[in-house]
C-alpha cells in the first residue's frame, strides 16, 4: 500500500525521524570506544568543532557495507578539504576495523564496540541477524554538540544517504556553524 502525497506535502526523502533510540533533533550520547588503533576515544572529541557523519555499519563481511563504503570514500575526498569529519562504528574488534580501514584506504576514525554496550544503549541492534548481532546500518549527520541533524536508516540499501544528500546535510550544518559563511567582501 502506498500513501499519496497531498498538495504542499514535502516530497519524501530517505531521511528518517528516528532510528532505534535516536531521533532527529536529539543528541547522540557521548560514548567512549576503542578506535582502530586501540586507543580509547570519546565521540565528542572526535567530532570536535565540525559537522560529522557518524556511520554505524554491520561489518566488513556485508556486501551492502562494502558498496556504501565506496560512497563514503568519494565523500572523503570532499571532506578532507571541507572541515567535516567521518566516524564509522561496528561491533568488530579494533584489529578487524584497522584492516578494513587500511584495505579501503579510509583516512577517518573507526570505532569498535565488540561488547555491544553502545549498541544496546542506542537501541541499534539488528534483530534479524542472529549470527553477527551487528548494528543496524544507520547514518547520522551531527553538529559539534552531537545534535542529530539528519538520520538515515540503511537496513534496506536504498535508505542510505546518497553522496548528494550527505553534501546537502553538511552544507546546511556548515552554513549554521560558520559565522563567515557569507564570504566577507569589500
Amino acid at each position, binding site marked *: 500500500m502506498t500513501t499519496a502525497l497531498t498538495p504542499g506535502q514535502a516530497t519524501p526523502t530517505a531521511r528518517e525521524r528516528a532510528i532505534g533510540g535516536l531521533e532527529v533533533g536529539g543528541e547522540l550520547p557521548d560514548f567512549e570506544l576503542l578506535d582502530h588503533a586501540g*586507543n580509547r576515544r570519546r565521540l565528542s572529541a572526535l567530532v*570536535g568543532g565540525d559537522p*560529522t557523519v557518524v556511520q554505524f555499519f554491520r561489518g566488513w563481511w556485508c556486501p551492502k557495507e562494502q558498496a556504501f563504503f565506496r560512497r563514503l570514500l568519494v565523500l572523503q575526498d570532499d571532506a578532507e*578539504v571541507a572541515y567535516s*569529519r567521518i566516524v564509522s562504528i561496528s561491533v568488530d574488534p579494533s584489529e578487524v576495523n584497522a584492516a578494513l580501514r587500511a584495505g579501503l584506504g579510509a583516512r577517518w576514525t573507526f570505532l569498535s564496540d565488540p561488547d555491544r554496550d553502545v549498541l544496546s544503549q542506542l537501541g541499534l541492534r539488528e534483530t534479524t541477524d542472529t549470527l553477527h548481532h551487528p548494528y543496524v546500518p544507520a547514518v547520522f549527520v551531527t553538529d559539534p554538540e552531537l545534535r542529530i541533524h539528519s538520520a538515515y536508516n540503511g537496513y534496506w540499501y536504498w535508505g542510505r544517504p546518497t553522496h548528494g544528500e550527505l553534501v546537502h546535510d553538511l552544507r546546511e550544518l556548515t552554513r549554521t556553524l560558520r559565522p563567515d559563511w557569507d564570504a566577507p567582501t569589500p
Partner: protein
Amino acid sequence: MSRCWLALIEEPARAADAAAPAFTLDGRPAGTLAAWRQRAKPVRYALRVDERMIDPAGSPALISLVLPPPGVRLPFDDLTVQQARRRVLTGPFPDAVSTLLRDDSHFEGAITIARSPADKRWLTDDPFGRIFPARILAVDGGILGSTAAPTGPTIERYGSGNPWPWDLFS
C-alpha cells in the same frame, strides 16, 4: 594563530617554556630542542608548532625532524605536502605530529614523535621526510608529549596561521 614556537638550538634555551637535550642515534649531542609559548618569535629560526605536543613533563622520545635546506620552502598547499598529510592519516598515528611554519602560506618542516617500537619504525618512513631531509634524533624528557590522532579525513589547517593537524578554529 599558534603562539607556540619550536627550535633546535645550539645556544642555551633562554626563557624557553620547555627544553631538553637532543642526540643523534649514535649518541652525539645535537643541540637543545626548545619550545616557547609566546606571541613573538623567540629565536630567528624558530617555527610555529602544534602546542598540544609540548609537555614539560613529557618522557624521552625519538623524533623525526624534517627541515628544508636553507633558503628553500614550499607552499603549504603543494601537492606533495597534501599527500604527506594524507599518508599520516592513513598509517598508524605516532605519539604526535605537527607541521612547522612561520607564515600563513608555507610548509617549513614537520616533527613526528615516537615512543613505541612500532612508532619508531614509522619514523624511518616519515611521509614528510619525502619532501625535505629528515633527521632522527633522541630527545630527553621535559619537552615532548603526546596528542590524540586526528579524526580524519581533514588535511586542511584550521586557520592558515596554525600548524596541521591542530583541529579547531578557536
